[in-house]
């Protein structure tokens, strides 16, 4: 416990100093709240409109989790499929990369046009964002199994299916998790973009509304929640990784454990 505190206090101190500096500047230079609110004003506003914020947060969270779950599942499935069918991979992979080159800010309005204003276009957008890093990471993980281990498995007569299930799949898990973490980091911000493009609830919608009304404290309050959501999702994935990869030598995790 003492060790942990020792590791975190410098960044905590810098954070606190910055917040104080910000608040001080707002007071000293007498900056209007609609232009730049101080941390105190943001906290005050957050508390004041908490029920509304919570409602929008719930909408964003639902969208994020649903999109993330569907997108990563699709990514894992496609990664496996491409690994097992190299011909399919060669023919379809360029298309996959292409799909990632279209900016989501362009893709969003198109999806809206095609799929209407409901939940569907937003989920499709999120699936597209989460899918790619996961499928690439899965494919890379499956393809990089140690050749001496593969050779051993073949020598003792293991079939392709056994090699896939017992060697390649568990070997791919660490790589898969780096994809899952990237997708987690992107998914919340992508949900905000999706809501921005067209929605009647959610933090993206709320920010747009508040910005139009020059209610800067509300924008900052929503941003604060977005940051917390992102960190939470990323943290949850990192925790799952830690629990699942207990077999890895401690040294690769970095840092001492109590």
């Amino acid at each position: 416990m003492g060790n942990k505190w020792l590791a975190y206090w410098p960044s905590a101190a810098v954070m606190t100093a910055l917040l104080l500096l910000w608040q001080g500047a707002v007071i000293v230079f007498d900056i209007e709240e609609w232009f730049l609110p101080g941390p105190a004003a943001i906290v005050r506003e957050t508390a004041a409109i908490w029920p509304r914020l919570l409602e929008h947060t719930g909408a964003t969270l639902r969208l994020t989790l649903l999109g993330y779950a569907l997108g990563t599942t699709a990514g894992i499935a496609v990664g496996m499929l491409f690994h097992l069918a190299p011909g399919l991979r060669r023919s379809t992979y360029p298309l996959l990369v292409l799909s990632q080159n279209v900016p989501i800010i362009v893709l969003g309005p198109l999806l809206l046009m095609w799929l209407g204003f409901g939940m569907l276009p937003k989920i499709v957008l999120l699936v597209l964002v989460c899918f790619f890093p996961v499928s690439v990471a899965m494919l890379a993980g499956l393809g990089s199994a140690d050749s001496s281990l593969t050779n051993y498995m073949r020598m003792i007569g293991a079939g392709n299916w056994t090699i896939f299930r017992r060697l390649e799949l568990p070997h791919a898990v660490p790589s898969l998790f780096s994809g899952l973490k990237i997708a987690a980091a992107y998914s919340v911000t992508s949900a905000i973009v999706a809501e921005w493009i067209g929605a009647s609830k959610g933090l993206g919608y709320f920010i747009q509304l508040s910005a139009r009304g020059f209610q800067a404290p509300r924008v900052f309050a929503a941003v604060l929640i977005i940051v917390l959501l992102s960190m939470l999702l990323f943290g949850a994935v990192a925790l799952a990784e830690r629990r699942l990869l207990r077999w890895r030598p401690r040294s690769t995790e970095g840092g001492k454990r109590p």
Partner: protein
Amino acid sequence: MTDVLEAIDIRQRFDNGGAAVEVLAGVSLRVGAGEFVSLLGPSGSGKSTLFQIIGGLLQPSGGEIRMGGEVVTGDRGRIAYMPQQASLLPWLTVAGNIELALEVAGTARAEARRLAHEWLERIELAAYADRYPHVLSGGMQQRVSFLRALLMPRPLMCLDEPFGALDALTRMQMQQWLLQLWEQSRRAVLLITHSIEEALLLSDRIVVISAAPAVVLHELEVPFARPRDETLWTDPQFNRLKQQIYGLLRQDDEPGPPPLRAGGER
């Protein structure tokens, strides 16, 4: 009695950018029931290629493999195998690794579990049964790797330079350990090695092959009684045989007329 393994006139050519490279130029050898045979040859003599053919991973350009009298050329899953690197899966526990190998060989899961724990106890590694392989030393990993091969219900054990990556002292200890364990079980073994001492200490018979394109240079029965131990190293006959084999391999190294294929035909 039929031999556990017969490799008959095995030839292997690889196409290397248009030029055919001959690795095995007709190698024949046999392993009888309960016999420990070593395949001794210089590095790069195609020993591992021969193993891949016996394991069924490579289809030879010529010749055939028989096991128990049956032609099994190109068939996989007929041998127990111990590679040079311990090749333990890092995400499985020590016992889990042994269980996996046994399950691949067709042993039921419960029986595999029972055997793994029973034998880990017997080789005094029971404390590590539920630990991951990375906590084991190199020598301990190779013990687990050997045990895994020993327990596989297959007629032939193929050991591919199993101690090549170990330091000299660990290597000597491992040879002693393997000798003891093997002399209790007497499985048919084919060992690849480039260590003359190792071959002499462990085997009943040694097949010496040349550098690529490999042919059998010589085949000799090792005359020492079992059980054997490290006192063998000081035996004058041990040193005489060592010199003899060394001479064969050195002679092969020199350019000149091809060596006699003494004992190569059977």
